[in-house]
């Protein structure tokens, strides 16, 4: 891209600068090496613009998924004096608690646009609310769902103009995703809504659970080869507006892995999922467009997170095109609700208002990396989830300030061609390919989970970060620096009550156990027994798609655990690795 002679001259002049101007500054401060780098065309002398960047909305998508991001339309969408955003009706804030009635009432009270449902841990781990093993957990981190009844109750908040064909529903569910989604499909059947009209994203990303989030049930192989395969095949065929998965490198980074591991592990996991579709005999372009990413991780290292996003887009595009032979551009893009961000685990409980500053830094990185300005999370997240409406208002306002006042989305990929940013993007991509090759050599993501490699790597990276904080190599303001006597502890007063009723949350377990007892009493228990026997027979057959069976079971009010227990017998249960 650059003239050879000009590059040679630049390299010559750089040496002069290093020995002259730079050396003088280094001597003045008694340093051997500069604390800041400087980049020139010589750093990217062989750079091929068309191969490495191209144009936004075209392979390799480095500059962005589309010709322009939709956030560039923010001005026309909001307008002076305006309030509500335009046509896009996205699912709302991640929410849910207590028994189904409590969550339904919350959605009615907050006039939610669409449910983005958090399930409690028993539900996420395939246990019913009346299982003595889960005492203390029912209704705590999300809503308790045992049977179709809970879906019917929750969705009483979404009828008429907000029926399930008019709103998007998100479900943060992984190991038992097919069972919970089957309840949603059963609800659609009951309401006479065709599956083709449903808009939803079940998280359905089991592999990260084994290394970062922990809500697994079965071992990785049946989880991928049976459960994930079933979801891919079924959703491709019957639910074109439902996303098959929401792959979350973000969870793995939150568990402590490095940026490069986040990218490599996410790619490896995505590859394992894509492969199940190929192995089922489907064409890549028939299902890959329904893959999404939840988000990758983030950090406060502003430039690196921008470079990360560019590298991620280029890498996924290459994987889809070169490895899987995809032809449709929609198969090659990383569809995610946010891009770069601060890394939610980097918020501090100490001096929480500083998290506004941090989130804005992350939001700027997001806007400059081809995504929306994700000013997230709300500053008070370390003090307790779902809290203050003020924090959420500040968050929304910050996004609008970045778009409408700072006009950050007026240019697509403004860092394209930067000697620094292109070098950094290449570096991160190369490191991720190296790690990915290592994982592929082990046999892929499933093998790298079975042998404990990924789990131990995440643990090691987390520990190294902790050590760097404790030695002061990594500085965190208000935590290990700026904590002297002269510093003010700025603590915001909390004026707004918690949106979740704490009394209801405490009583949820007892309430749900009673609800479940009633369902078990009034359902046709012979039909339940028959369906479970049928499910068992079906589960023994490698090629059988179990989702239609789950739908039939759901309609008969078979419980989630009853279905999972059948599968536990046949697939086994996951045994964690040690460190």
């Amino acid at each position, binding site marked *: 891209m650059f003239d050879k002679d000009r590059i040679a001259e630049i390299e010559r002049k750089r040496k002069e600068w290093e020995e002259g101007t730079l050396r003088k500054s280094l001597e003045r401060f008694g340093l051997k090496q500069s604390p800041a780098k400087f980049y020139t065309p010589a750093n990217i002398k062989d750079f091929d613009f068309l191969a490495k960047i191209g144009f936004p909305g075209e392979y390799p998508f480095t500059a962005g998924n589309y010709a322009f991001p939709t956030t560039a339309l923010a001005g026309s969408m909001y307008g002076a004096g305006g309030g509500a955003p335009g046509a896009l009706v996205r699912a709302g804030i991640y929410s849910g608690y207590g028994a189904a009635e409590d969550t339904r009432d919350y959605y009615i009270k907050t006039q939610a646009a669409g449910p983005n449902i958090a399930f409690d841990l028993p539900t996420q781990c395939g246990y019913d609310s009346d299982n003595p093993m889960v005492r203390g957990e029912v209704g705590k981190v999300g809503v308790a769902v045992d049977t179709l009844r809970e879906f019917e109750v929750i969705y009483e908040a979404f009828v008429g103009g907000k029926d399930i064909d008019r709103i998007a529903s998100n479900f943060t569910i992984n190991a038992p995703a097919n069972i919970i989604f089957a309840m949603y499909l059963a609800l659609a059947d009951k309401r006479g809504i065709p599956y083709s009209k449903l808009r939803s994203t079940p998280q359905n990303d089991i592999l990260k659970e084994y290394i970062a989030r922990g809500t697994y049930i079965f071992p990785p192989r049946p989880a991928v080869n049976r459960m994930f395969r079933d979801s891919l095949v079924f959703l491709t065929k019957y639910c074109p507006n439902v996303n098959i998965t929401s792959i979350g490198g973000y969870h793995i980074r939150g*568990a402590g892995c490095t940026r490069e591991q986040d990218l490599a592990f996410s790619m490896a996991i995505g590859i394992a999922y894509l492969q199940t579709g190929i192995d089922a005999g489907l064409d890549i372009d028939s299902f890959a467009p329904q893959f999404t990413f939840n988000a990758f991780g983030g950090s406060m290292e502003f430039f690196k997170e921008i470079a990360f996003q560019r590298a991620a887009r280029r890498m996924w595009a290459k994987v889809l095109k070169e490895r899987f032979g995809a032809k449709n551009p929609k198969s090659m893009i990383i569809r995610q609700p946010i891009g770069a961000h601060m890394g939610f685990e980097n918020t501090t409980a100490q001096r929480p208002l500083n998290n506004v500053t941090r989130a804005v830094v992350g939001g700027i990185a997001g806007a400059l990396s081809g995504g929306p300005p994700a000013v997230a999370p709300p500053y008070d997240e370390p003090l307790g989830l779902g809290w203050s409406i003020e924090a959420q208002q500040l968050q929304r306002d910050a996004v609008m300030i970045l778009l409408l006042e700072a006009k950050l989305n007026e240019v697509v990929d403004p860092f394209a061609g930067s000697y620094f940013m292109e070098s950094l993007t290449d570096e991160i991509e190369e490191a991720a390919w190296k790690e990915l090759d290592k994982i592929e050599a082990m046999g892929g993501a499933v093998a790298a989970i079975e042998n404990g490699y990924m789990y131990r790597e995440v643990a090691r990276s987390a520990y190294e970060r902790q050590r760097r904080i404790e030695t002061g190599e990594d500085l965190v303001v208000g935590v290990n620096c700026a904590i002297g006597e002269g510093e003010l502890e700025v603590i915001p007063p909390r004026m707004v009550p918690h949106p979740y009723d704490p009394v209801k949350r405490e009583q949820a377990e007892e309430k749900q156990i009673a609800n479940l007892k009633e369902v078990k009493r009034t359902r046709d228990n012979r039909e339940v027994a028959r369906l479970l026997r049928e499910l068992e027979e079906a589960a023994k057959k490698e090629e059988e798609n179990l989702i239609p069976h789950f739908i039939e079971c759901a309609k008969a009010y078979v419980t989630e655990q009853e279905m999972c227990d059948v599968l536990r017998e046949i697939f086994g249960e996951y045994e964690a690795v040690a460190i």
Partner: protein
Amino acid sequence: MAEARRIRMLIAKPGLDGHDRGARVLTLGLRDEGMEVIYTGLRQTPEKIVQAAIQEDVDVVGLSCLSGAHRYLFLEVVEQLKAKGVEDVLVIGGGIIPKEDIPFLKEKGISAIFGPGTPIKEIANYIKKTVKRK
């Protein structure tokens, strides 16, 4: 002269909470501080934790919970240790424990709660100072 036995610790995740970054980091970190640390992994019932604590003959049990079920779960572990006649095992906890719950937990037998941001050394020093050696 016989070497003093190294402090033995069990780090456990009671209940269904799957967030174990802190537990993993402490396992590795307290090993570097000279302790023998066994990490149980996720999904431990109070029964299994107490069983492991006895089997491994530990001096300290560290409980981690981020799901809000700590009041029930931590208490269960302490009660069952008592029921099994296990004396002198230091029980500490961490995770996401609201400030309001700390007095209750301490009253019930949890010696200390170490929240987010606690340096590993602080926990190590507390253990070394407080533990009753076997």
